[in-house]
C-alpha cells in the first residue's frame, strides 16, 4: 500500500507543479495619501475586510491597467465612486430610451 501510494502522490504533485498557472489573490495593505485625477480612472472594485484581505479598500483601476488602493473613509474616494455610478446611470438611461 505504502510503496504504491507514495510515488503516485509524488508524480501527481510534480505534474501539478508543471501545469500550475497560479496567480495569487492580491490585497491592498496601504492607502494612497493623495488624490488621483478622475479622468485616469476606468473603474473600481471593492476590497471587503470580511473576506480574505485584512483592510477595507476601494481599488481604482486606471486606464493603463494599474490599480490604486484608496481609503473608503475619505470623502473624495466615495465622491469618485458616486461619480462613476452616476455617469453610468446617465448613459444607461440614454441607451434605454433609444429605440
Amino acid at each position, binding site marked *: *500500500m*505504502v510503496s504504491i*501510494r*507514495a510515488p503516485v*502522490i*509524488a508524480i*501527481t*504533485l*510534480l505534474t*501539478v*507543479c508543471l501545469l*500550475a498557472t*497560479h*496567480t*495569487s*489573490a*492580491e*490585497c*491592498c*495593505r*496601504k*492607502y*494612497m*495619501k493623495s488624490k*488621483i*485625477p*478622475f*479622468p485616469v*480612472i*476606468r*473603474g*473600481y*472594485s*471593492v*476590497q*471587503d*475586510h*470580511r*473576506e*480574505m*484581505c*485584512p*483592510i477595507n*479598500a476601494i*481599488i481604482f*483601476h*486606471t*486606464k*493603463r491597467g*494599474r*490599480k*490604486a*488602493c484608496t481609503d473608503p473613509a475619505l470623502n473624495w474616494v466615495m465622491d469618485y465612486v458616486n461619480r*462613476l*455610478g452616476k455617469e*453610468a*446611470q446617465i*448613459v*444607461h438611461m440614454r*441607451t434605454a430610451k433609444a429605440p
Partner: protein
Amino acid sequence: MFCLCLRQRNKNMDFSESEFGDYDPLVEPCSYQNNHRLEQVVGPYVHSIICILGFIGNSLVIVTYAFYKNSKSMTDVYLLNVAIADLLFAAVLPLIVYNELTSWSMGPVACKLLRGSYSVNLYSGMLLLACISGDRYIAIVQARHSLRLRSLPYSRVICAVVWIFAILLSVPTFYFYNWYEPSHISNTPMFDGEGTNLTNFWDIFMLGGQENQTSRTPQYVCEFRFESNSTAWSAKVAIPSTQLAVGFFLPLLIMISCYTAVIITLLRARNFQRHKAVRVVLAVVLVFIACHLPYNITLLYDTVNMFQQGECEVLDNLQVAKTATQTIAYLHCCLNPVLYAFIGVKFRNHFRRIMQDLWCLGKRCIAPRHMSTHRSVTDPARTARLVHSSPP
C-alpha cells in the same frame, strides 16, 4: 475642475498616470511576488518529500501497532494516536498544496473539509504530544501513582477527549473558511466612456449580472469569509490566537514542565542508561521547539500586525518567512515516528518482526522465524523501559 488641476501641474494635456505618479506613486495591491516564487518551489517539491516521509513513517508505526501489539500500554495508545494524526496530516497536505496551486479546483466541499481536517490534525497532534509528556511524567516522577493513573481505558478516554477537543477547536475554521471569488477580484466594473461598456457596467454593478469578459478564468480562494464586520475583526484575531495558545504554547508549557521534572528525576536515579534517556527526552523537546517555535513567532507577529498598514516589500518578506517556517513545522510530522516510536527498543523489535514476516510473505518462505515470539526485551532499567526510549 479636476482636469484643470492636472493641466496646471502638467504642461501637456495628456492624462497619463506616470505624470501624476512622479510626485505621488500609486499604492497598488500587494502581490507577494517573492512568497509566490517560494511557494512554487516549496509547495510541490519540498512538501511532497515531507508528505512521502510522513506517510511512510507513520504508516509503519500504525501497521506495527495494528498487527503486533497484543498488550498495548498507555504510551502505545498515545503513540498510535499521534501516528494517526500525523498520517492524516500527511494525507491532507498534498491536497491543500494541489488546491492552492490550482485556485481551489476541488470546490467548496474540499475547501471546508481540508481546512477543517488540517486544523483537527494540528490540534490533536500537538495536544497528544503534551499527553505523552504527561504520561512519562507520571511514569517516572509520580511512579507510586503510576499503576492507578496509567491504565489502558484511562488513556483511551484521554485520547477521545483530545480528539473531541481538537474537533471543537476546529469548528470556527470549518465554519468560516469558504470557497469564493474575492469581490475585489471578481467584480471590476469598468468605465470606458463608451455607451456599450457603460450598459455593461450597469448590468454588472446594479443587477449583479455576470461579467462578459469570458477570457478571465475565475480565481477561487479558500479563505475566511464573514457575514458581519464585528465577526470579521474578532475571528481574524481569535482563530490564529487560539492556534498559538492551544496549538503551541499550551503543549510547549506542558512538555517543558513535565520533561524538566523527568530529567531531574532521571539524573538523580542510579541507572546506567539514564544519560541515554535524558538525551532522548532533550531531543524530543528540542526538535519540537526547533520545528514549531519559528513558525509560531512569525504567526504571532503576523497576527499582531494584521490590520496595520504596511509596505508591500516588508509584507512580502513576512509571507516568505511564514511559508519557510511553516514548512519546517510540517517537517515535525515525519520526525515524530522516529522520535517517539522507533527510538523505543520494544517498538523496534516489533517492527523488525513485522518486516521479517513481510519479507517471508513476499518470498513465500516457510522457514521458522529466528526471532522469538515471546517478549524478549525486559529491560532491567525500569525508567528506561517506561520512557520507552532506551536506544540500543
